[in-house]
């Protein structure tokens, strides 16, 4: 059968809507599993290790490099107006308001989200989840919910560490390489970063992104086809859908918060 372009568009839209519905349902199931005992604390710790501790090197390194880059770029512009004291404000605001949560979320989606999706998809392929079901253990409770919660917990912590490393990187480049006065760098940063707008906004973003990544990664793994191609599709799907979702949500959160 041949389908017209419009029919195809209609079909795709329906598929998207169906998935949105299922994701919402899945989110409710995860929440219910987390609220009702048994609490799987040991599994949560293991998953926080996978999502958080193993992401530390890439997050901290990226943070330092991004902070340094911001300093370099910002300096060349600001120095023309003799405003290089404002470098601290520039780095601080850029990192805390925008780059910290967004870049951390993208990095963690690529590193930990994809790994969780692949792990769950492999468990689908090798009937491990069916094995749990046959032991009257709900796989969403046993496997999925600790992973989703682990990403939600790890994300704001990693975003905080990313920001601190970015500020250190920015400070190091500004003071060590460009000769900006350290005191005025810090003063300009402290003077311009505000708690309610910037710091709280930043962590609301990080928590939102953590929840989204956790949900998308586990959902995508859970619905994967039981084949090798299914596992790889779950992995790429998580990274692509996760990243786009994060950027879109960032746009709208900025709209709410930034006023």
């Amino acid at each position: 059968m041949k389908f017209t372009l419009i029919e195809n568009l209609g079909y795709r839209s329906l598929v998207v809507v169906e998935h949105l519905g299922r994701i919402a349902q899945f989110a409710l199931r995860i929440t219910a599993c987390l609220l009702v005992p048994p609490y799987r604390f040991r599994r949560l710790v293991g998953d926080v290790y996978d999502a958080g501790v193993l992401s530390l090197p890439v997050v901290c390194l990226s943070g330092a490099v991004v902070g340094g880059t911001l300093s370099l770029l910002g300096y060349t512009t600001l120095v023309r107006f003799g405003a290089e004291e404002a470098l601290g404000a520039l780095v601080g605001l850029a990192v805390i308001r925008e780059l910290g949560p967004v870049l951390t979320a993208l990095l963690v989606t690529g590193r930990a989200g994809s790994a969780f999706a692949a792990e769950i998809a492999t468990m689908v392929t090798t009937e491990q989840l069916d094995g749990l079901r046959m032991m009257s253990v709900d796989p969403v409770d046993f496997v999925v919910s600790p992973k989703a919660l682990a990403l939600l917990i790890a994300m704001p912590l990693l975003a905080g560490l990313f920001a601190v490393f970015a500020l250190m990187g920015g400070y190091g480049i500004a003071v060590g390489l460009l000769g900006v006065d350290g005191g005025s760098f810090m003063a300009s940063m402290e003077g311009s970063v505000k708690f309610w707008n910037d710091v709280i906004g930043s962590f609301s973003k990080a928590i939102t992104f953590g929840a989204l990544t956790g949900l998308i990664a586990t959902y995508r793994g859970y619905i994967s086809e039981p084949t090798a191609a299914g596992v790889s599709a779950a992995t790429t799907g998580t990274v692509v859908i996760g990243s786009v979702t994060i950027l879109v949500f960032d746009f709208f959160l900025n709209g709410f918060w930034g006023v």
Partner: protein
Amino acid sequence: MSEPREPEFRIAFDGVSLKRGDRVIFDGLSCGFPRGRVSVVLGGSGAGKSTLIRMIGGLQRPDSGVVRVADEDITRYSERELFKVRDRIGMLFQGGALLDSMTVAENVALPLREHTRLSEKDIEAEVDRRLVAVGLSDAGQLYPRELSGGMSRRAALARAIVMDPEILLVDEPFSGLDPINVRRIEALLVDLNRHLDLTLIVTSHHMASSIRMADRLVFMVDGIAIAGPPDELLKNSDERIVEFLVAESDSFAEHHELDVTPLMDRRTLPDRRKKS
């Protein structure tokens, strides 16, 4: 295939049909598995043995027809209701389905940790007993990736029986095992059945052990089941069954000229190999 009504069927299929895509897998399948007996499900590769087992566990729903387990129609059960039924079932998957992030001992202990209040010491003792029974007493600390195929299947069997189920479903327990372990697992299964009044359903390709163990044989052919006591079925004249039964005997090759000559009369490929 209709059967004489036997009241003690623990598990019964009634007019079950299932299609996957365009393939018809079950086409009005009806059969029963008596309580406290050993039923062996036979059938060619792809005949639907694993699918049958998964349906009893509620992992696969039929398109139509009814599956009864322990007098309950589980066909429309929700996951939560199925958990109640599954509490009485142990299942060995064809691939083992061990959790690969945990050791063998942790895998076997999992149902105990989830569903009992036993102390760590009691759990350890229970786990050890099952591991000894399947001949894996020294493999408890290994991870599934460190096991051979036969070892994982035995570890999975230990996990399937750890909760002392009333119904035990075992998918291909003998494939990939050496003759000694075939005997060991066979003896273990028969033992469980005799002493614990276990309703046992085994799928197998292994004719000799199947006939030794079975109180009842179920042949899967063309999407339906032909069932009965072994001595009766072995006299059955349905040619699909006869063919299956005699395949292991010497006379098979004489009666059935399996035509493999198209492959054997000449080599066709060497000249067409890519030259590097």
